[in-house]
């Protein structure tokens, strides 16, 4: 490795030994200098103080009430991101003591069915956030191309959702005025999923990918399931428009819009996924 040696010499010379170069020194001095330089360069990284440790505790809380009203004695580290691992660091956060942040379900939300109290203990031990980070290039579930989905056109699922009138409590599309292009409805089985922002986001994304096939009056109901990480599955035409091109384009709109944002953390504490319909018209 001739190259690195020369680099190190040059580096070291320029980093403080310039002027004292071995040019006029004897062979012995040069040799000594080389040894010193080597030692210096090898030891330098170890002598330098390590970068300030990334020391914070990052806790997943399923909240329900007033901010700061109930402060736990100690947090429950969910992803202790300490880096680099420093053996003798005295300031490390103590590992998760007991008191978790208690999510108290608000008493004042009668419309929703009795939501499970979502104890934090039941929280799935999520890996570090980077793991659940969505990589748009790798979809967890590869969906078959739309044409295949069409081929296996399924009968509408059991839930007899009223086509236009949204189920009570279920949030509809991003804006009422957009009903002309379609609307997203939460299926009856997940009626407690009332996050308007999420429905609006999902609807908006599908719309961005929706290229309506010009077949005149048409209406199709596309059903699919959104998982906690925003990926989708079970994409099918629940009610065909009668036009294959229209159905295909509607399927493609949903498929291209996915993955969607992760489901609300507070919801996935007790649910795996949510089943929705998108009405293309």
């Amino acid at each position, binding site marked *: 490795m001739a190259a690195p040696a020369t680099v190190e010499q040059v580096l070291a010379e320029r980093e403080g030994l310039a002027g004292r170069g071995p040019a006029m020194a004897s062979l012995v001095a040069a040799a000594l200098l080389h040894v010193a330089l080597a030692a210096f360069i090898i030891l330098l990284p170890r002598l330098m103080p390590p970068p300030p440790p990334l020391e914070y505790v990052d806790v997943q809380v399923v909240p329900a009430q007033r901010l700061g009203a109930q402060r736990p004695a100690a947090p429950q580290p969910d992803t202790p991101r300490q880096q680099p691992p420093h053996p003798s660091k005295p300031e490390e956060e103590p590992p998760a003591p007991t008191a978790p942040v208690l999510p108290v379900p608000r008493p004042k939300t009668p419309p929703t069915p009795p939501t499970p109290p979502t104890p934090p203990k039941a929280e799935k031990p999520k890996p570090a956030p980077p793991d659940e980070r969505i990589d748009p290039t790798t979809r967890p579930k590869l969906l078959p191309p739309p044409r295949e989905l069409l081929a296996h056109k399924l009968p509408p699922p059991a839930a007899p959702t009223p086509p236009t009138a949204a189920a009570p409590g279920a949030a509809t599309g991003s804006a009422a005025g957009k009903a002309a292009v379609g609307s997203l409805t939460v299926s009856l089985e997940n009626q407690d999923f009332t996050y308007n922002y999420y429905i609006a986001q999902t609807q908006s994304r599908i719309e961005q990918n929706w290229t309506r096939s*010009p077949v005149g009056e048409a209406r199709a109901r596309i059903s699919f399931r959104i998982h906690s990480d925003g990926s989708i599955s079970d994409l099918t035409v629940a009610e065909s428009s009668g036009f294959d091109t229209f159905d295909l384009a509607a399927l493609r709109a949903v498929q291209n819009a996915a993955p969607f944002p992760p489901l609300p953390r507070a919801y996935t504490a007790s649910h795996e996924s949510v089943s929705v319909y998108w009405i293309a018209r």
Partner: protein
Amino acid sequence: MDSTPEPSLRPARRPSPLAAVPAAQTALATLAVIIASTVGIALLAAVPPAAAAQTAQAPPAPAAPAPPPAAPPATGTPPPPGVPGAAQQTPPSSFTIETNRGQRPKIKLALPAFHPGDLSGDLAAAGGELEQTVRADLDLSGYFQIQGPEAFRQPPLTGDVERDLPAFHAAGAEVVLLGDTHAEEDKLVFEGRLIDVGSGKAILAKRYRAKSTVTRRMAHTFADEVVRYLTGSPGIAMSSIAFATDRTGDGRKEIFIMDYDGHNQRRITNHRSTSMSPAWSPSGDAIAYTSFLNGYPGIYIADLANGRKRAVITSGSLNITPSFSPDGNQIAFARSLEGNIEIFTCDRNGGNLRRLTNSPAIDTNPAWSPKGNMIAFTSSRAGNPHIYIMDAEGANQRRISFDGTYNDGAAWSPDGDHLAFTSRRDGRFQIAVVDVGTLETRVLTAGPGENESPAFSPDGRKIVFTSRRSGVKQLYMMNAADGGDVRQLTDAGSNDMADWSRQNLEK
């Protein structure tokens, strides 16, 4: 560590006169989207233009007036590659880069002042910085239309989510972000939560505790989490930008890095020579660069974990402009051979040297595509410097840029669909973006100031570039879609040749 904290992110002069009129810009961008989608329809379904026009109006344009009905039918036929289509009749800065995906409406986010808790001294300052940083990150992301804090001061909020919801609702917010800071021993504790305004339900809540030295990191982490939960896309608040600067004096140039928002600028090299052209390794663990350390330019790598630098290629008379392959194992660079400059690749340790180009003209400035299968580079084989791409083995070399008299410094978008580059138009250097598939080119900057050396953010939504618009070369960032939202990142010395890390980094 030589850190040079400096105020940054101050709003900069917008490059385009058109950008000063956001409404007009939005309308034009929307128009462009609609035109593009019309073309898409024509391609997909082969429908008559009239029907396409009708369909194009079916998806409601986000927050924009109805498009002029005359435009869409004109685009019944797709524009031939490289030839400006009907869409290019309008000024270039009005285009959106993701014509196929369109522009999503911004999420209306209420962001009242954080509840400051019982902070004092250092922690109070840290709490303030935390709030400021979260706010700045979310604003910079471009995903949100942020309301507050002023909007929610009068009448004051009660602190009870349920009782405050009507105020957020009245402000038209879809989501509200509530923050609470307080002290625990000598540490700052931050609790942030997102609430769906429509239902009053919590979306997400996170609690962080740290010493005040990592306040910004805490804020960036939370901001990225908010972006991810509300948009499904990863944030970039933990990414970094490497650049070359002369701020150390004596005409030398050193490699520095900084946080994506211009904070925390710090030295990487101390060669007391001329070091430039930094290139991030894909994982962010190292930076390759060019240095005149040995008197002639060679390729070096700085290992960021331990600060060590080592030579990769120093043989020959000139080795410049390195670029990592996406697997991080190889480096493409320009190398002088018998007086002529060609593109070479080598392993990360300098072995396995291979020559890719062989032309009597100058071939330089390679940029390895994110998928690894292509390398973009600059060549003067057609007389003037222009952007070319080739397979990563050197085959299939083809020209990408046709407009302008000087095109150089190509940088890939993370999805590999676009190249940003420096383009001289009407005697001035501007940042242009070309769609590698269609060769449709847009110019993102305008006016004087020599805008050059672009690099995409990890999410492809921003471009960092050099501009002399303030008199001295400084780094700026702007929206990759339309060149809007320009912000200055540096102001110490002269700064140039920025490269944006390929992902968020654990700093």
